[in-house]
């Protein structure tokens, strides 16, 4: 299990290659990468990501632990950034390794659903028009009902 909360950018490809190599006895690697997306009007200047140091690591480690227990996972990895990011920059990634693809996919989706509304991060959009805290979405909350 690898959980990292960091301000620095990271190389998703290198992380996935290293993760796959560590788990080459598994047959299936699923990954998800989140990117700062510009808004529809293309006015986003930056996204500020605030987090609760300590609790972020703890909450994510617990989420990962429950995924490893619930699915037949060889391993899982989560990297989540904080600080000021520009549109197009990578915010976070998850990776899961399993013998079967269904376990790898489901666990990755589960991790993403929990990260969205249970990991202590908050996003603030800085646009040409002003500054807004990104509201939580009801469908992110509803997504947890699946699990």
């Amino acid at each position, binding site marked *: 299990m690898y959980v990292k909360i960091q301000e620095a950018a990271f190389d998703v490809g290198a992380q996935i290659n290293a993760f796959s190599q560590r788990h080459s006895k598994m047959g299936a690697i699923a990954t998800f990468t*989140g990117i700062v997306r510009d808004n529809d009007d293309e006015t986003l200047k930056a996204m500020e990501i*605030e987090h*609760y140091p*300590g*609790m972020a690591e*703890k*909450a994510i480690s617990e989420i990962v632990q429950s995924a490893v227990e619930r699915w037949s996972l060889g391993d899982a990895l989560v990297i*989540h950034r904080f600080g000021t990011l520009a549109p197009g920059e990578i*915010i*976070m990634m998850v990776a899961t390794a399993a013998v079967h693809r269904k376990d790898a996919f489901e666990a990755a989706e589960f991790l*993403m659903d929990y*990260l*969205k*509304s*249970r*990991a*202590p*991060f*908050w*996003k*603030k959009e800085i646009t040409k028009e002003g500054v807004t*805290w*990104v*509201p*939580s979405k009801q469908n*992110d*909350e509803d997504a947890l009902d699946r699990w």
Partner: protein
Amino acid sequence: MKVLYFAWLRERIGLSAEDVETSAETIKELVHELSSRAPRYEAAFSDLSAVRCALDQNLVPFDTPLGDAREVAFFPPMTGG
């Protein structure tokens, strides 16, 4: 105990952390104490349905007893990922 505020609660209250002496038994009681201190606290806590809280870094409901917790945090619903 240590009280932490994040995101718009931090901005509205104007503090990210403070040490609070309290005899409150639950988080809810602590919120009432804080709200009575100054309008900026009252404004931040005016709609608790928009606020989440953590006790010693565990997400908990507002009626949770403070017990001997060392840290309580208030923040809006999380938007990670």
